[in-house]
């Protein structure tokens, strides 16, 4: 008797707990929480003080997991066995996630701070009706160089530093490239004068071959420790994302008289990648109210400004921009001019061709 009652109880509990996330979203109110937050994010992309502040203000715990590439995030989300509440993917990956039905439609009634967001960063191609995303930061991918280690005052602003053997040898460059197929092949394609979203397999192959030839000079493919490798001297240059370099420079500021004359972040003249990251809620998230509250919290002007000053990326929050240190706003490497931006491309979702990039990159990477 007792046993069957127990079983019944368990069944009822299970039935209740598998209510859909959409319904849950409708039950939330502004600033409400329904459980701890599982945050899946790039490493060092959010100010830890803000995370603690959120935990204290709302009385929940925030668990952070990190990924170092969009593909990794996508794989985890696709398996459907991970209960993340917030993820921060990049533009082209968001399109894919939407296509696979992995994202939750946001309840904008719970996000009054959304009005702070720069309209230029809403309704973008990856989420045309802007129902799944809240823009986070945008930035560029370029090449950071330790001029001090090379013993020069400046270097030419070109991807040739990576792909041209003569230039490499001239400056004695030792560098890492991002462990990312679209980024690396993108840089090669730009150097060769093509679009980094080309679907022409011959062009992609040409780019891959170029990377193959460069193999001997590449110290490693790395997306998460290149700043530390520059500091330790293992490399004197690195392919990386804008904000990561600035965090590096700020750290070295007390060691160098003028960090900016010793280190430089280049956005090569041939062009490169610009990207936007946005916060999304996976469709199988459990703490949907908490997730919305977190999104709203991060969009608050002061918080967003604090975050922007911490991770040195370009904020998509217009209200926050007014509160950011003007010196940072004037820094063209963090906030590039419209002119420079015009020369850059977003990585686009290329459907079937995505795989071609992955495969060619892998081939190039493993050739020796």
């Amino acid at each position, binding site marked *: 008797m007792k046993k069957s009652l127990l079983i019944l109880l368990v069944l009822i509990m299970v039935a209740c707990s598998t209510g859909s996330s959409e319904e849950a979203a409708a039950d939330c109110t502004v600033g409400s929480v329904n459980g701890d937050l599982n945050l899946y994010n790039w490493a060092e992309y959010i100010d830890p003080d803000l995370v603690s502040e959120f935990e204290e203000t709302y009385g929940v715990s925030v*668990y952070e997991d990190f990924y170092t590439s969009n593909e990794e995030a996508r794989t985890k989300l696709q398996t459907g066995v991970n209960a993340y509440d917030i993820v921060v993917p990049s533009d082209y990956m968001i399109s894919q996630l939407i296509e696979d039905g992995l994202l939750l439609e946001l309840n904008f009634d719970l996000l009054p701070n959304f009005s702070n967001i720069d309209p230029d960063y809403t309704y973008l191609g990856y989420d045309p009706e802007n129902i799944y995303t809240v823009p986070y930061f945008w930035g560029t991918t370029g090449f950071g160089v330790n001029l001090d280690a090379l013993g020069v005052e400046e270097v030419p602003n070109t991807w040739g530093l990576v792909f041209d053997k003569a230039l490499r040898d001239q400056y004695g460059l030792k560098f890492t490239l991002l462990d990312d197929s679209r980024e690396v092949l993108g840089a090669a394609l730009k150097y060769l004068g093509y679009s980094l979203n080309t679907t022409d397999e011959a062009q992609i192959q040409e780019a891959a071959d170029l990377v193959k030839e460069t193999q001997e000079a590449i110290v490693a493919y790395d997306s998460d420790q290149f700043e530390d490798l520059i500091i330790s001297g293992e490399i004197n240059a690195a392919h990386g994302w804008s904000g990561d370099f600035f965090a590096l420079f700020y750290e070295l500021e007390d060691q160098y008289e003028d960090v900016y004359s010793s280190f430089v972040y280049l956005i090569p003249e041939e062009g490169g990648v610009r990207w936007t990251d946005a916060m999304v809620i996976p469709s199988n998230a459990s703490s949907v109210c908490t997730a919305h509250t977190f999104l709203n919290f991060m969009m608050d002007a002061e918080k967003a400004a604090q975050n922007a000053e911490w991770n040195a990326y370009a904020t998509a929050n217009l209200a926050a921009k007014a509160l950011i240190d003007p010196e940072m706003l004037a820094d063209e490497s963090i906030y590039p001019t419209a002119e420079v931006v015009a020369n850059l491309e977003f990585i686009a979702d290329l459907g079937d061709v995505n795989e071609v990039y992955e495969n060619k990159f892998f081939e190039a990477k493993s050739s020796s």
Partner: protein
Amino acid sequence: MNVINRKLGLKLNYFFVLLFIYLPIFLMIALSFNESKYFNQWTGFTFKWYQQLFENQNLISAFNNSVIVALSSTILSIILGFGIALFMFRVKNKFSKTIEKFIYVPIVIPDVTMAAMMLVFFVFLSNFIDLKLGTLTTIISHTAFNISFVAVLIGSKFTRKLKVLEEAASDLYANNFQVIKHITLPFVMPAIYASVILSFILSFDEVVISMFVTGPGSTTLPVYVFSMIKKGITPVVNSISSLMLIFSLILVSGVLVLSGKDGKI
């Protein structure tokens, strides 16, 4: 002359190997007390990196998860593994002979393969039940390989001597439970102690499998440290590694003391 050379060669090799193994360890422990962030300069003695460790919430929670997972999978493995060991020892038919062979598979399988297997399995299961990766999936995965270690370890203690004792006891009208309780268990106790500690250590140290099957909030310590190590070489990583080494050292001493004087692990 030849003999002396050989003897010298052996001794040299002995010291060289010990040096090879321990030098990096001592270096790392020493560096964890280094004031400077960079390991090519020594600027003073400090505990600050250890302090930072204890203030790191994520780290502490990862540690707790590791302990919970290790304890649970150890208990489960001991119970299940002991059963299998007894089964292999007492039953000698075709089935048990097959088990004897296949029991080695979880021991020898590379963790990458096992990690992939478990992930695929859990993803498949999630189609039927509301399953999320977390502490439970980690415990199950760790138990899956620990059972074999336990079974083999305890199994190695089963000798003819024990068989004789068991038969004698049952001749004297002891039933199965009594035999196990009074004869078998005490006889293999050293192996059980060793298995407990071995299981715990194996689970606690497991990286790749945990990487694939833990979920948010249930990250284990090695997974967390692995991402720190990939990130770079900082003294904080030195501190955590040193602590992990010392922690294992204490446990290892336990293994050796308890696995008996014959030195067979």
